[in-house]
């Protein structure tokens, strides 16, 4: 059973505009969330995290939002750049020994 879901397999955005990537989770015990970026033929690399005590965490062009009541998190990229084109994974952890990953969203930023 997929506990972390990314319902949009792909997203295309014009350069300079905002990219919004979404992620939903089902387990209310999750309290720590991360976003990863993956280029082809490379391993995922960490982008930004957000804990359940916050509803927003900002790092440069990247902002992570958390809505605990809706069990929803999102990643905003502003402004989007062609180099941001990659697959983005959200991940969650909580009571157990694992990180649970979503299926990924492929972002294409069009110059």
């Amino acid at each position, binding site marked *: 059973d997929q506990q972390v879901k990314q319902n949009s397999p792909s997203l295309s955005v014009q350069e300079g505009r905002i990219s919004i990537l979404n992620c939903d989770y089902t387990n209310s015990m999750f309290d720590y969330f991360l976003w990863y970026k993956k280029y082809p033929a490379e391993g995922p690399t960490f982008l930004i995290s957000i804990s359940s005590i916050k509803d927003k965490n900002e790092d440069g062009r990247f902002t992570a939002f958390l809505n605990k009541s809706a069990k929803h998190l999102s990643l905003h990229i502003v402004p989007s750049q062609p180099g941001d084109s990659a697959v983005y994974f959200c991940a969650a*952890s909580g009571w157990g020994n694992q990180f649970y990953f979503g299926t990924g969203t492929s972002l294409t930023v069009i110059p």
Partner: protein
Amino acid sequence: NAGVTQTPKFRILKIGQSMTLQCTQDMNHNYMYWYRQDPGMGLKLIYYSVGAGITDKGEVPNGYNVSRSTTEDFPLRLELAAPSQTSVYFCASSYSPRQLAGNTIYFGEGSWLTVV
């Protein structure tokens, strides 16, 4: 600063052969993980370890074995390779899955395995 190193990067196996994917980390992390990623799919956990001598199954453990004799190393063994094991394998490590300042999971660059 090597981080997580996994080898080999590419390998072609024949059906029924066995092999070991090596993984080592130099960050003194307690937790180590093996994931596989099939084309167009997300990351599925195969096995994980919470420390030397302790391993546990993830979501898709069938056809694989692991061991953790040291903190640094977490090899993944494929016994009797099957075409369904054609995938990209990622080793990863973290200090903990808990929300601690600066805590995150670090990935290796991946190992591309094809079983023919």
